[in-house]
């Protein structure tokens, strides 16, 4: 079974040289720490920064320079700043190659819910609806089950939808799942996890890839 760092590490393997990537808040942000050697990716922050650098040293902290999670960051050589309309222009016009975001629920047809729990939690969608409506490639990083132990990989989302049929892959502590016409397709299972266990924790339609294997991270 993976911890959150393992999930991030596994997603980092999806990065390709030259990719422009938008990382959501939480586990997705950790992906930046595991960019494979020898490839260059440029991170887009929807508040208006292309080329997110590492967290600043204490004396470099700049209140005017944050990422979309409101964390202090730095620039890198070649970074640029822009306003929020241009930022979402990049996203909407399909220039961001990969979007990684968290979710509360994903359905086996690629629907995603991650912005609201009616009557309980109303934080808002931020940029998530824009991202999922336009991104070419969306990977969800999330825990396989919720705090009550119920599957978050469902046949139908029960929470308000963020976007329809948009998720391409889901990476959880249990495995890597591709969204296909037959539902969630298990491509890789995490070390120490059995396929039967994954089946027992997955409410949505699940098929097992013929060449399924234990992931190496």
């Amino acid at each position, binding site marked *: 079974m993976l911890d959150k760092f393992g999930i991030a590490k596994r997603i980092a393997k999806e990065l390709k040289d030259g990719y422009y990537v938008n990382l959501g808040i939480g586990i997705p942000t950790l992906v930046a720490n595991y960019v494979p050697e020898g490839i260059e990716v440029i991170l887009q922050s929807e508040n208006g920064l292309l080329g997110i650098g590492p967290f600043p040293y204490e004396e470099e902290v700049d209140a005017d320079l944050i990422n979309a999670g*409101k964390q202090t960051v730095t620039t890198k050589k070649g970074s640029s700043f822009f306003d929020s309309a241009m930022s979402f222009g990049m996203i909407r016009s399909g220039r961001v190659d990969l979007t990684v975001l968290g979710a509360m629920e994903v359905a086996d047809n690629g629907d995603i819910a991650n912005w609201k729990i009616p009557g309980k939690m109303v934080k808002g969608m931020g940029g998530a609806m824009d991202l999922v409506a336009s991104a070419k490639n969306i990977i969800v990083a999330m825990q396989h089950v919720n705090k009550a132990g119920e599957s978050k990989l469902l046949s139908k989302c029960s929470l308000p939808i963020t976007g329809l049929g948009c998720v391409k892959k889901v990476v959880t502590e249990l495995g890597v799942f591709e969204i296909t016409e037959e539902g969630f397709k298990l491509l890789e299972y995490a070390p120490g996890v059995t396929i039967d266990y994954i089946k027992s924790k997955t409410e949505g339609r699940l098929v097992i890839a013929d060449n399924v294997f234990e992931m190496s991270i």
Partner: protein
Amino acid sequence: MLQKVVANASEAIKDIEDGAVIMLGGFGLCGIPENSINALVQKGVKNLTCISNNAGVDDFGIGLMLKTRQVKKMISSYVGENAEFERQLLSGELEVELIPQGTLATRCMAAGYGMPAIFTPAGVGTEVAIGKETREFDGKTYLLEHAFKSDFAIIKAWKGDAHGNLVFRATSRNFNPLMAMAGKITIAEVEELVPVGELEPDMIHTPGIYVNRIFKGTDYEKRIEQLTVTKR
């Protein structure tokens, strides 16, 4: 002679009355018009509709106006950092319209570009789309979203001059230049008010034509929401 420079925030906002629709620039607490928000709290105007990406935190930014119950309605994309906001929302005291961040930005842009509406794919098939006109282009469905109408836009820039030309700094740019273009009356507070001619024409982000009032702000706190550092 252009008469845009005013003495301070209370002078700049003095004709904002109860019930006004105001845009406030910033992303989180980054690039928010701190001086003007404090002046609005002091003035005590009520029943405001605020268009702003976020709602501040409990004791800073727009959070200050929530605490004093000056806000009737918030139009935002993300309000997760403010407990008082969530309480007022869930109890029904505060009206809230949550809209996708890109839609928020582009509805500001449309207003500043003199276009009545835009089409966006964001929110199709979700609660956001309820009651909205849709249209298909090249086989994909889009929502019709209207340009914002607001009485005032209140924004924060790094440098500005008496003509209202503005330059923003780093990610504190965010919604500020868009809202600057979108207000019926635009009020800009700046960290540095420089002599006309000092800003390079090539480097100006917001041309002065969009700015009606400008003043030099003071005592910027520039609070950081999530201090993250690399240890040496």
